[in-house]
């Protein structure tokens, strides 16, 4: 133990080995779903605040409500709302995958990759259906 110099404060003689970093990994779909779960979760944090703004504008009267829904209904507002719709449905589908993993099922690589494709497909289809309904009912 004579050469242990942990408490001398001297710098390490050589850099410590690092675990593999993002750059050395080939992108695969389960990795994409994992990262996107966090990204969409952060986006939905903002979405919760946008919903709060809606409630406040409704409580503030017709003029405030018209101004706020006008903002949401603008071109940029609609793009953001389509984004939130995608985030809700992706995070929802991927959240169900997490709940299935929590009971110990679905870990085989093929199963996990298939459920990742299903999560992406569900997000795309559900978003398309919601906005088609909005278009048909005159909401957009």
């Amino acid at each position: 133990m004579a050469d242990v110099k942990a408490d001398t404060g001297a710098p390490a003689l050589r850099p410590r080995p690092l675990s593999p970093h993002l750059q050395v990994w080939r992108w695969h779909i389960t990795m994409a779903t994992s990262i996107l779960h966090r990204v969409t979760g952060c986006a939905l944090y903002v979405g919760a605040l946008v919903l709060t703004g809606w409630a406040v504008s409704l409580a503030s009267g017709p003029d405030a409500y018209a101004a706020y829904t006008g903002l949401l209904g603008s071109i940029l507002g609609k793009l953001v709302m389509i984004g939130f719709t995608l985030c809700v449905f992706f995070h929802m589908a991927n959240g169900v995958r997490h709940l299935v993993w929590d009971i110990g099922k679905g870990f085989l690589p093929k199963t996990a990759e298939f459920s990742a494709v299903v999560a992406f497909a569900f997000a795309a289809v559900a978003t398309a259906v919601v906005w088609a309904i909005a278009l048909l009912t005159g909401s957009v």
Partner: protein
Amino acid sequence: MALAPKSYRTPLGRARGMGSAHHGVGHFIGQRASAVALLFLLLWGVWSALKLAPVGYDGAVAWLHSPIHTALLVLLLAAGFYHVRIGAQVIIEDYLHTPLVKAASLLLNTFVCYGAFVLAALSVLKVAFSVSGAA
């Protein structure tokens, strides 16, 4: 000096208080319980948004006069801000390691989530309890 230590944590580690806060299991279960609730509440929320988009201010006020709609919307806000708060806390704890920045971010996260929840819920209740036509 005891021969058999009760814990493998060093006295320094214990003094610094950097170990488990023993809140992890509660967060783990709460995150999943709110996730199951949100699965249903968000589907209802998206469906409701489709109904509310074309009907304007009067339609939205009339819609909130239903106690079921009021209750579900407040539950959506409660489950949503709870889920979002502990989710963001995990991300903050994963990526921010400077003690002051981390503590400030955790505090801000808590303030924003509780603040926005109270603001949104009170707004919803104000409309829900307003007299029809005079809102």
